């Protein structure tokens, strides 16, 4: 099965290890992974800020980059969902609306792809540690991926997975919200970290680079010892934690 990886700008620049782990995971389950080099950013920061005209060039570039892909897999629920939004971005422009519709049909978030398309629930991973999982808002509420990460994590050997209290609360990232309304965002991320601390977990696992950058950045600022990891790294791990 041929899979085209949509790495996301955050994944390309900041969380390179999560990307590497995603490739290795997909290859382990027989996928031939391709990386369309013309890909950039999905345009979500501009789209969610209301700059829809200015989002279109990014969207067109992405639609073109993945036009010939069989499956598009993305290690971020939020960015994968942005591909689903292109249809409404181009509403009324039949050429691009149609292309956007096709892209939407073949775009999946990584854990969604592993469980729904590849039928994998056990990645054979081994990771020793006490961890909790942050469900990101766009992945669960908008993309509708709620169970896949848990199915996969529960089968990781050595992993003690603890429920995160109030796990459906937003971490306060929200793209430009984090900088535009930083004082409110600060309270939200602190509340999230309080809940993570309640679990006494050593690792916080997430499936979205944006949330991880926000929670991880705040954890680092406040010199807390919790380590933040992308789910792909955990699922690809072979006991070296």
């Amino acid at each position, binding site marked *: 099965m041929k899979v085209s990886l949509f790495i996301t700008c955050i994944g*390309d620049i900041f969380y390179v290890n999560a990307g590497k782990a995603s490739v290795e995971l997909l290859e382990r389950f027989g996928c031939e992974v391709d*990386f369309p080099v013309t890909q950039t950013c999905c345009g979500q920061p501009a789209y969610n800020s*209301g700059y829809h005209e200015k989002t279109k060039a990014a969207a067109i570039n992405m639609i073109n980059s993945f036009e010939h892909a069989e499956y598009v897999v993305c290690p971020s629920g939020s960015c994968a969902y942005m591909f689903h939004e292109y249809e409404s971005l181009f509403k009324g422009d039949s050429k691009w609306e149609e292309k956007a519709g096709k892209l939407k049909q073949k775009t999946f978030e990584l854990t969604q792809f592993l469980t729904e398309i590849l039928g994998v629930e056990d990645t054979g991973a081994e990771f020793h540690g006490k961890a909790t999982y942050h469900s990101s*808002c766009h992945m669960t*509420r908008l993309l509708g991926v709620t169970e896949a990460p848990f199915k996969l994590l529960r089968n990781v050997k050595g992993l003690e997975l603890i429920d995160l209290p109030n796990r459906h609360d*937003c971490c306060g990232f929200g793209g430009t919200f984090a900088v535009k309304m930083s004082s*409110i965002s600060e309270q939200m991320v602190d509340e999230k970290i309080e809940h993570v601390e309640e679990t006494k977990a050593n690792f916080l696992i997430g499936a979205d680079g944006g949330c991880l950058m926000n929670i991880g950045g705040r954890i680092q600022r406040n010199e807390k010892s919790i380590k933040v990891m992308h789910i792909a790294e955990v699922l690809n791990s072979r006991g070296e934690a």
Partner: protein
Amino acid sequence: MPMHIGEKEFSSRVNKGLEDDFMRGAVRSAQGRLQTNRAKAADELGDWEEWRYLGQEIRQHTMENLDFYLKQLSEKVAERGGHVYFAETAEDANNYVKQVINKKNAKKVAKSKSMVTEEIALNDALEEQGCEVVETDLGEYILQIDDHDPPSHIVAPALHKNKEQIRDVFKDKLGYTNTEKPEELTLFAREQLRKEFLAADVGITGCNFAVAESGSFALVTNEGNARMVSTLPKTQITVMGMERIVPTWEELDVMVSLLTRAAVGQKLTSYVTALTGPKDETEVDGPEEFHLVIVDNGRSKILGTEFQEALHCIRCAACINVCPVYRHVGGHAYGSIYPGPIGAVLTPLLGGYEDYKELPYASSLCGACTEVCPVKIPLHEQLILHRKKIVEDEKKSGFGENVAMSGFGIMAGSSRLFNTATRMAPYLVTPYAKDNAISKGPGPVKPWTDIRDLPVPQKERFRDWFKSRKTGG
């Protein structure tokens, strides 16, 4: 601006909210309770999602045929001997009510809870002409006693106060001597209010739903105060937003079920009062004279636009009760009597972008609001639509942001530029980086690093690794 509350600047209101630990504690615990109760009441139905679809369909159908149902409603009210007045503006509505009150030479008005009368600032208008207005909903009563503290929530207006604060208000203003136990506080308020119901010349109610087919009005309360307001005074005035209408009693059944479950997690509230016009010869109870005031105040301008779904709102506050932004800043920070996600959608529509352009940004777009809305208003999408309007039509987004987004748009639209920029990034931030983190970022990065570290862009990007891996074998 009648519906405006608090200081003018959004940022000062937010800071005030963030610094108010009492308020935040009260909101946090109330939200927790309301969220759990709502979820339980929704699950109990078994097929909550189908109920939501039904609710959405009913609201959509009603809005699409609003002219028909409003005509039917007013005809039915008139048939029963009631008076109907269509108020285009807040001022028109207030003037009509004032006129009725003057004619009756009324000195005292008892009111049951109504958001639309808050929106048009009816109390101020009546007090200006020397009429005494008594709020009889417990929450509204507390706020009125407390020097007209504005509501911070559309269902539980005094949600921002804890019981100790309420005890102190009663103590300072009314000489209350008992404890902060809710039962004692309520009993005390009940004693005070009973006298007011009996003394009032005119009763003013809001309207949860008007039933077009019979010209009836349904009021949903847990205190029974709406029933007292609508039966004891000789004259009754019901004020409704023009969208608060259902075609028949059958739809009312669905909407009330959705409302009480979504709002307070109850199958049904203690009282659902239904009124149809003034009393006739065969009836013992009820007002002798009935007036209906239908308020437009900007609503008809929303009809037919991309924001029409905002008019589907049934004021249950479920979106407010799950909103993390509301939890931290409180209702007053929104500067409007309509706070939270629905307030951030509705307030700029009714009050304009000039005063409320920040509200659509007071959301992380987490979608919790959209998920709980019993009539499926896509609240977070409506917020994005507002942003789009502010940016692309009103051009009110600010020069800096506009330049930054233009730059971003061009870069994200060109693989060549994106590639160059991301390759250069690690070198550009070198002066700011320490231990693989940036803790004091320059320019646009500053608001991020004011509260959290930023990871350092990697010199070997994912794309570089992927390429070398391929070529390396």
